[in-house]
């Protein structure tokens, strides 16, 4: 049917437009990262990644993700259980509060922790008196990351759990299973792909967060630098190849994230 689609040349033109647009905006930057990372060869590449500061930054990034992701996962499961399985007053309001961190600039997310823990902040004098360092130290980096990635598991889990419905849980409970048993044996297996999906997205953001972490970190080398901050420092010191080498690790993480995400999406679609 000719009237149901566009003429051939229009189709080719639109496909070309889309591919050129994505090529310029997505493929070119990616190619640029790897091209610059290997500009001085493999030896140099591996050398910069084995540098103590780079290793310390990777460790800090891993620790941050290892704390932030599980906490937000527990929250995500609890929040989606309350929101999907029950009908209560203020549910929509709660949902929009959960989404708040996504609509705040990363710099403002960092700022609120400076206002909380900083020397002129609310907790500042008390913390100084008790000699506790939170700002410009790993705790603030972790807190800011938890804040920024806060809704990521809940947002992915709520639609999956909603699609699942409550019939299976109701059946289990009617047959005499306890609440926790129902949760572990019925709910968790049903939403396992949704959980994995949330973890993947939350982890990518936790490892890659820059703005919020940059505000609270104080940029102390080997101590409070995450991998994205390490990239920034190297770049600002004109160590471009080293900066791109560190960036290539993060770009690789992004590619792995996309691949994993595509597979899990397919599993969620077919697994219903």
């Amino acid at each position, binding site marked *: *049917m000719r*009237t*149901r689609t*566009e003429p051939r040349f229009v*189709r080719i033109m*639109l*496909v070309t*437009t*889309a*591919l050129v*647009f*994505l090529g*310029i*905006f*997505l493929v*070119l*930057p990616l190619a*640029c990262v790897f091209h610059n990372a290997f500009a001085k060869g493999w030896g140099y590449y591996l050398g910069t990644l084995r540098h103590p500061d780079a290793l310390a930054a990777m460790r800090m990034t891993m620790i941050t993700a290892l704390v932030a992701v599980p*906490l937000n996962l*527990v929250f995500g499961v*609890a*929040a989606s*259980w*309350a929101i999907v*399985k*029950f009908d209560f007053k203020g549910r929509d309001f*709660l949902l929009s*509060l959960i989404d*708040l961190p996504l609509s*705040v*600039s*990363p*710099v*403002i997310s960092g*700022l*609120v*922790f*400076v*206002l909380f823990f*900083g020397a*002129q*902040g*609310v907790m500042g004098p008390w913390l100084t008196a008790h000699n506790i360092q939170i700002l410009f130290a790993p705790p603030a980096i972790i807190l800011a990351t938890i*804040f920024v990635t806060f809704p990521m598991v809940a947002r992915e889990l709520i639609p999956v759990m909603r699609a699942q419905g409550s019939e299976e849980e*109701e059946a289990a409970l009617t047959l005499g299973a306890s*609440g926790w048993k129902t949760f572990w044996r019925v709910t968790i297996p049903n939403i396992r792909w949704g959980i994995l999906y949330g973890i993947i997205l939350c982890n*990518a953001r936790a490892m*890659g967060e820059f703005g919020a972490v*940059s505000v609270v970190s104080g940029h102390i080398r080997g101590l409070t630098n995450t*991998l*994205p901050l390490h*990239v*920034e420092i190297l770049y600002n010191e004109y160590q471009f190849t080293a*900066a791109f080498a560190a*960036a290539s690790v*993060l770009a690789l*993480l*992004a590619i792995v994230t*996309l691949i994993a*995400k595509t597979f899990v999406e397919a599993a969620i679609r077919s697994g219903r």
Partner: protein
Amino acid sequence: MSRRFVQPSILPGFSLSLGFTVFYLSLIVLIPLSMLFVKTATLSLSGFWEVVTSARTLAAYRLSFGTALVSALVNAVFGLVVAWVLVRYSFPGKRIVDALVDFPLALPTAVAGIALTELYAPTGWVGRYLALVGIKGAFSPLGITIALTFIGLPFVVRTVQPVLEELDPQLEEAAASLGANRWQTLRKVVFPVIFPSLLTGFTLAFARAIGEYGSVIFIAGNMPMKTEIAPLLIMTKLEQYDYAGATAIAVGMLLISFVLLASGNFLQWHISKKLGKA
């Protein structure tokens, strides 16, 4: 009509799950965010006004909101084309292209920032050709817009795509059999259906672009009054330990975005109501 706080259900764990949710939400999000209000309350109104209306702050606001708007418009146009092509046509490598659309969400912003700077710098792969025709890519408002376009790219595609997939082909068939040509069908049948989602995607891309920091600071050049975005100005104030100034700029930014997004939502509600009637 009085309604219970929670509708009865045989499922257990309501108090536990809601209690934990509210506790964790307060601890991680609400209490820290309330610091903005606590700090703002300590500012005098004239002090707040002075910071927010200083020439440097106004220039930063204008730049942030202006470049965010342009980048969201670019994404609305090209995002629509990408969504259309992904849903309606088949071409080799389509599944990879589809997965690639989410790349800006997965790539850490600092990495995007240095890669785009390298590309659009006067010596870069793209920048050198722009320089030939006298256009400055990196270190200019154009560079900022490019970075923001990268960041906002997935939003329009991912909001329009599912609506296009759900669109009933019978509508288009009916229009065609009633004698509409293809252009009329697209304009009068398809476009009204996807327009609300296009507006949502545009708003999301715009909102994300306003606050963006990591991908912009490298390519911006960061010249006060010229290429200094509002989030960077907050950062600068913080580095000078001017917490009050930083908070004032942040609150001003949040207020402007709130007004813009609220009017966007109103516009969307108005348009979809009108389209629903037509």
